[in-house]
């Protein structure tokens, strides 16, 4: 990757850790980041006094030393990290419409994947196994219909959304609350590589090496809300980061979907409250595609898949029929079918291998 002097100055400016609106006004009044740098070198940062407190100016001066600048560029080169301003042709159009757009944006991968259809999927880190599974499925189906999934790389729902999208055919975009070279959370490392590999993009407002600070997340969340045409809330408590993202989405005039989880589960409370307040209801990717007037490119593959499954024997059919109504535990199945434990274990394995049945944590089985 090749960098201009302006690129270097832009990256340098983000070390001020200024609010996005302040960064915008600095760039507005100076014109380019290069000019900010030159002016500051001349007057030892006096020119920035109207915008930034002294501590942040000192930080910038420290970072402006040739050695520090060089080290930063080396990291960017190594990580193949790009940097862009609002005038860049790759700058996502969705951000231009925001009240407080990111003035400077770091990226890894291909930012053009955000030009197409985008949906943001958000939710808690402490997700239930069922919702994780649902998230993967919906993300995969959307991905197969050419939709780019936007999420935040956190564990739980976020990772499931990215992974679901990666299982499908479209790229996915991850927004980070730290420098692009920092793996936060630590498990996101392999996922990030996978995202880049499949033509997706990672975006961040924060410079290389910047740790994920608590206040970064609310700013990051506004970008997640901004990138998607709609925001899908999978699971979360009433007081949670996901609900704040939803608030950003509403402020930006986006559609909000809420996944109807288990009533009674405290993790589903947030989504249910949203539904009461008029969030859009959905149960499958098809619902969202229809609302958005997007043609689903891949005709629903599930029925076809089912037909091609090998036939079941009588015992298997009996088990499958029971699981069509509800998920059941091993003991419940044994009681209802009257099979002994070895037979039931064996048949359940066969059904799982054949793809009719899924095993859930807690020795419970579900129709696939």
């Amino acid at each position, binding site marked *: 990757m090749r960098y201009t002097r302006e690129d270097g100055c832009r990256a340098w400016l983000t070390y001020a850790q200024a609010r996005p609106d302040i960064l915008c006004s600095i760039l507005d009044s100076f014109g380019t980041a290069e000019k900010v740098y030159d002016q500051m070198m001349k007057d030892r940062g006096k020119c920035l006094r109207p915008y930034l407190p002294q501590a942040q100016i000192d930080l910038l001066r420290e970072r402006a030393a040739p050695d520090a600048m060089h080290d930063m560029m080396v990291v960017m080169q190594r990580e193949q990290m790009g940097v862009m301003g609002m005038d860049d042709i790759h700058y996502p159009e969705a951000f231009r419409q925001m009240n407080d757009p990111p003035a400077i944006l770091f990226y890894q991968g291909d930012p053009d994947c955000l030009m197409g259809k985008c949906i943001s999927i958000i939710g808690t880190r402490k997700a239930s196994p069922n919702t994780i599974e649902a998230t993967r499925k919906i993300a995969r189906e959307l991905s197969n219909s050419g939709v780019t999934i936007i999420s935040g790389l956190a564990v739980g729902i976020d990772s499931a959304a990215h992974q679901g999208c990666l299982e499908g055919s479209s790229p996915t975009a991850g927004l980070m609350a730290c420098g692009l070279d920092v793996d936060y959370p630590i498990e996101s490392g392999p996922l990030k590589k996978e995202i880049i590999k499949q033509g997706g993009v990672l975006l961040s407002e924060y410079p290389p090496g910047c740790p994920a600070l608590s206040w970064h997340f609310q700013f990051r969340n506004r970008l997640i809300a901004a990138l998607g045409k709609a925001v899908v809330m999978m699971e979360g408590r009433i007081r949670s980061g996901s609900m704040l993202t939803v608030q950003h989405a509403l402020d930006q005039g986006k559609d909000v979907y809420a996944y109807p989880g288990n009533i009674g*589960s405290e993790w589903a409370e947030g989504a249910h409250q949203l539904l009461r307040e008029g969030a859009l209801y959905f149960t499958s990717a098809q619902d969202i595609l229809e609302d958005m007037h997007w043609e689903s490119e891949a005709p629903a593959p599930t029925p076809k898949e089912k037909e091609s499954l090998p036939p079941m024997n009588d015992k298997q059919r009996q088990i499958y029929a029971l699981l069509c109504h509800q998920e059941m535990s091993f003991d419940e199945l044994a009681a209802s079918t009257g099979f002994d434990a070895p037979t039931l274990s064996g048949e359940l394995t066969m059904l799982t291998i054949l793809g009719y049945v899924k095993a859930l944590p807690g020795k419970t089985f579900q129709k696939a």
Partner: protein
Amino acid sequence: MLARTLGYGLNGVHGFAVKVEVYAANGIPALEIIGLPDASVKESRDRVSAAIVNSGFAMPIARLTVNLAPADMKKAGPAFDLPIAVSVLMASRQLESMDLSKTLLLGELSLDGSLQPVRGALPMVISASEEGIQEVILPEGNAAEVACIQGIRVYPARNLAQVIAHLKGSEHIPAQVQRSYDEILSETRCMVDLAQVQGQLGARRALEVAAAGGHNMLMIGVPGSGKTMLARCLPGILPPLTFEEALETTRIHSIAGKVAAGQGLMATRPFCAPHHSASVASLIGGGTNARPGEVSMAHNGVLFLDELPEFSRNALEALRQPLEDGIVSVTRVQNQAQYQSSFMLVASMNPCPCGYYGSKQRACRCSQHEIRRYLDRVSGPLLDRIDIQIEVDAVPVKEINQSRPAESSAQVAERVRKAREVQQARYRQDGIHCNAQLDAKLSKRYCELTPEATQVLHMAVDRMGMSMRAYGRVLKVARTIADLAGEERIATPHVAEAIQYRELDGKYWR
């Protein structure tokens, strides 16, 4: 005047003969013990003098030197009290001089002269019997422990006066009638019976398979789902200990001083459940005298680790050697010992820190990150040694009340015994006893699959993302299931069932 008697010391699981010599010389009255005695042997001086006086004899007014030969081996424990006391009486001519080189004397004396049971009586008597000693006089409390050793006459004594009377010939102690092992075996009962376990059909079956093939087992389940109770049933369905196994196990327990007074040879398989705060030394063995740890106490039985991830990482990693070799070497500055430790490992754990991940009754409060960290405390190499991994779900209260009569341990044990006999016969030339011990080469030879079963297994590898290592485990477990069914070739239902016992791979450790 010189007197000589015979005692025994302990080195690891073996006893060694110790000649106890007493020399009474003229001089200032004293009693000196030499021959590398430790503190507990040195204190014998005061116990012996008090016991002699309180048994109606007199402490000689002479300078007494007690020598414990061989002089270059460390001696520990109070078991030398009795031979010292008898030697002293002989040296002071209160007991006429006689040849006691074929009579083993064992016992701790209390101040009033009565005999207290000692640690390690069984291994000492076994070694003595092997070395041609014909009779042993020991405390009554140790009599039951050695009741099965043939070829040696056992005289259980209550106190020093009785021992002296016996040696003088004035009042004989009747020799204990040695019992056969089968007699003891028929008297034993296991405390927890499978009939008491309600529901849990899947887990019961897994337990049966584990017992039949000697497979290690891991149970994951919500708190209160009955994991501990299931594990406690295991000794009851395992085949009874053979005489050799019972000797091995009792020997180790005897060394650790865990054989209660009056308790005979252990005929039930031991069940050891160390707390999760256990240190490496307490699990593997250690201390200044290299005492056996829990893994050896569980020899030929079950080592149950409740709350597996709560054990310290070091403690869990230290289990790998005994799991692999069935033997541990405990090396300390002063001592070095090898103890057998071939046990079945049964572990249980919750699925997450709060315990309710995947439960239908209560919502889990843990983040994916916390769950991952919790599960990762159990290392891959340890998991690799656990063939059967199952989930245990809580049994709903209504099901507990509709109790249908469940199978008893005896019924299950009968099937297990048959499956074990099949394995014993099959592996006679290979130096192993059960399917769990099959290595890659042997499983290739013995785990023959029907073509359909092979196909199912390959499909499972493809569709369920099973690793090659898991593949090998499934083969072994399928072998056991086929043995339970009494079939020589492994067919589809056997493989299909065996795959169920790998279900945690996909769900928890991805």
